């Protein structure tokens, strides 16, 4: 064993790669044996090779700071995270089930609102949410699918069980990093792919293409698909370009599109206007159409909502999908699965206390030191308080925030997130991680084999977001034993 692994402690939390006694788990065995036998200099060479590949491939993300935007290289750890195919197939089914239920819910809310009539949840938490868009009422997208691309965050607790932490239904990002992570691993640890049977991830773009194409209002062999980006200064621009290119779709900005008098959407090309069938929008719905939403939006396409409602263009994810992407609604997802699908949830959700409910709020305020408090409506890990790590001052601030706006806060027990071996300087140390698989929902439902594993690079930290210093790992779904 090379000395980078000495002193690794896998017994503090559930470790993804090693058992608590330090032996490699089944799916990780070959990989760990290989890495532990590599001389230290070679490990360093491969880590540098990975950094170089990331730099040369220009895999970057943008961090917004007060001093301007910084384009940072993608932080990557070379040790893959492994999951057996057997375990994954169950999770995959659970994710499909969940996404179907969420889509049933969105479709129901913008149409008959049966779930509210049957009083499964208070109507006001849905209809008074800023994520509920009355502009979308009465629309029935094809296949009842609103959230066509869903990124759900999974975590594994100390008991070794996976939980869904949240569902991102608006413009989930990260899938290109999942693909690039695999690309880098193939470049720097090619030997491992000889003896392993790892489920490939690179057909994501073609699955995404099929999903989007299935939404086209025109029956045509090759529908015109456009990826709508806010532009180069968006933190996920790299991904927008990547996906457009790998699907052979057009990467457009709002100013490239316009809505004609015929309520169809066209893009401006060197040959004149060309009709667009499907818009994969990567801008927030509030900015998508100044006629329907924010009037000051310069990023959107005036009239695109008109075209969408007329059924002349498909938009993925459909505007309004965010109504199910709310941490308060999250608490009701298990009920939705039972209500719409008449099934029991295959993956658990994390116990969630809704501060708007008096009994829950009292519990939360009394137990702030044990809970994680999250705003109902933020993403990117902003505005979160991790109780056990927070100062008394911060806890007091959050108590006040909760009392002022209980609807906007939820709390969950602090999970002991699983860890995996990660290179920190010159040693391997356990770091907490999560997993974001992507679920596609069009005519068919499909789940990525694995997803994007994000790692909290700071010791003890649970915050995995790349905007806050998180890293990432390649994720292997390993066949056989």
């Amino acid at each position, binding site marked *: 064993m090379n000395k980078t692994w000495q002193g690794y402690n896998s017994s503090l939390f559930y470790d993804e790669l090693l058992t608590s006694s330090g032996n490699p788990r089944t799916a990780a065995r070959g990989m760990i044996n290989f890495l532990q036998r590599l001389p230290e200099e070679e490990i360093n060479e491969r880590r540098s090779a990975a950094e170089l590949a990331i*730099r*040369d*491939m*220009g895999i970057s993300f943008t961090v917004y700071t007060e001093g301007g935007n910084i384009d940072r290289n993608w932080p990557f750890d070379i040790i893959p995270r492994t999951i057996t195919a057997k375990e994954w197939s169950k999770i995959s089914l659970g994710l499909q089930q969940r996404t179907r239920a969420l889509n049933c819910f969105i479709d129901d809310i913008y149409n008959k609102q049966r779930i509210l009539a049957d009083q499964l949840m208070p109507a006001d938490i849905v209809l008074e949410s800023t994520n509920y868009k009355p502009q979308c009422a009465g629309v029935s997208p094809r296949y009842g699918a609103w959230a066509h691309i869903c990124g759900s965050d999974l975590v594994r607790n100390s008991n070794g069980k996976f939980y869904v932490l949240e569902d991102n239904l608006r413009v989930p990002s990260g899938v290109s990093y999942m693909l690039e992570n695999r690309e880098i691993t193939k470049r720097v640890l090619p030997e491992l792919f000889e003896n392993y049977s790892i489920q490939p991830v690179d057909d994501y773009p073609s699955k995404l293409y099929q999903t989007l194409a299935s939404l086209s209002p025109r029956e045509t062999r090759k529908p*015109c698909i456009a990826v709508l980006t806010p*532009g*180069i200064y968006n933190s996920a621009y790299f991904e927008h*370009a*990547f996906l*457009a*290119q790998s699907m052979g*779709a*057009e*990467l*457009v*900005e709002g*100013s*490239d599109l*316009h809505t*004609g008098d015929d309520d169809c959407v*066209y*893009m*401006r*090309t*060197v*040959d*004149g*206007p*060309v009709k667009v069938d499907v818009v994969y929008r990567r801008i927030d719905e509030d900015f998508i159409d100044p006629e329907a939403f924010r009037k000051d939006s310069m990023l959107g396409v005036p009239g695109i909502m008109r075209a969408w409602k007329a059924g002349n263009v498909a938009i993925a994810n459909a505007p309004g999908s965010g109504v199910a992407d709310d941490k308060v609604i999250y608490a009701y997802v298990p009920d939705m699965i039972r209500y719409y699908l008449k099934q029991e949830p295959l993956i658990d959700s994390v116990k969630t206390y809704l501060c708007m409910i008096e009994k829950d709020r009292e519990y939360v305020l009394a137990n702030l030191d044990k809970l994680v408090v999250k705003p109902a409506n933020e993403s990117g890990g902003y505005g979160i308080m991790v109780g056990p790590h927070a100062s008394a001052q911060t806890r007091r601030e959050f108590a006040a925030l909760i009392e002022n706006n209980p609807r906007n806060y939820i709390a969950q027990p602090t999970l002991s997130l699983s860890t995996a071996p990660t290179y920190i300087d010159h040693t391997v140390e356990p770091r907490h991680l999560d997993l974001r698989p992507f679920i596609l929902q069009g005519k068919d439902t499909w789940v990525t084999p694995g997803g994007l594993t994000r790692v909290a690079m700071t010791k003890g930290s649970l915050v995995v977001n790349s905007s806050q210093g998180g890293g990432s790992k390649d994720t292997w779904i390993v066949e056989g034993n």
Partner: protein
Amino acid sequence: MTMLSRVAERLYWMARYLERAENTARLTNAYTHLIMDLPRDTQVGWEVLIQMLDAEPVYTKRYRVFNEQNVLRFLIADQENASSISNSVRAARENVRTTRDVLPEETWEHVNELFIYTQETAEKSIGRRHRYEFLEQIISRCQMVNGLLMTTLFREHSHRFIKLGHLLERADMSTRIIDVGAGAILGRAETNQAIDPLLWGSMLKSLSAMSAYRHKIGPLVEPNAVVNFIFKEARLPRTVYFCLTGILEELQPLSNNGDAIQIVESALQKLTRFDAENMTLAQLHQFIDQLQISLNQLDDAINTAWFLPMQS
């Protein structure tokens, strides 16, 4: 296949900036070699390079004297000079960054590496010691990107607008080089039999045209023959004639191409009638001015026909 107007515009400028970086490197390289050959008291100075790039106004705001250090800093690394090698590469990269989806996958990697190399090396490559290697690197890395595009790019609009950008920029640079080169050499009070052939030779070298010239015309570097060669030779990629016919070829399949074609055809006619033999220096200069005006008009016409947002 469809091509967004915005993307066409960015590809066109990517190509122009790449070509500009390469041309500036070529010019600087050839000129550095030349200066080393010249006796110390010749009247040829570094300002010629600035004149060739029409950059005196920007230059004189930044520097008082036209010495080697200043001129080279201005051409290679100056952030205030929009056309410095460093800024051209940055602009090319920015355009690739926003069009990677229509380019072969490796394009971004190569252009990004070129950018990183330039950022890391430009500042310390101003002195003679590292300059040559830097300029050679810029030229070969630009050529690598061009080669990549030429051998992998799908022959449709993206290729067309990239080619238009390259050819227009190259025609522009070649005419500038002749204009200022000829002016600097012929405009001096007396000719110098020992030096003039070197100057003309360096002009040919900056266009990679020296061996083609020897092959086609002969070993003697003679002013009128050089000017005619750089303007009118149909088979050499850096001549004005070659660039304009190439542009014409790319314009033909496009819709809405009337204005642009007319400008190119009329410029080609003038070029065909051109002969340096019968011209004074002033006439030559005037001819080149006209050609430059045509190139500017062409850029405008391309902009109007394909890049500006259409009225919906």
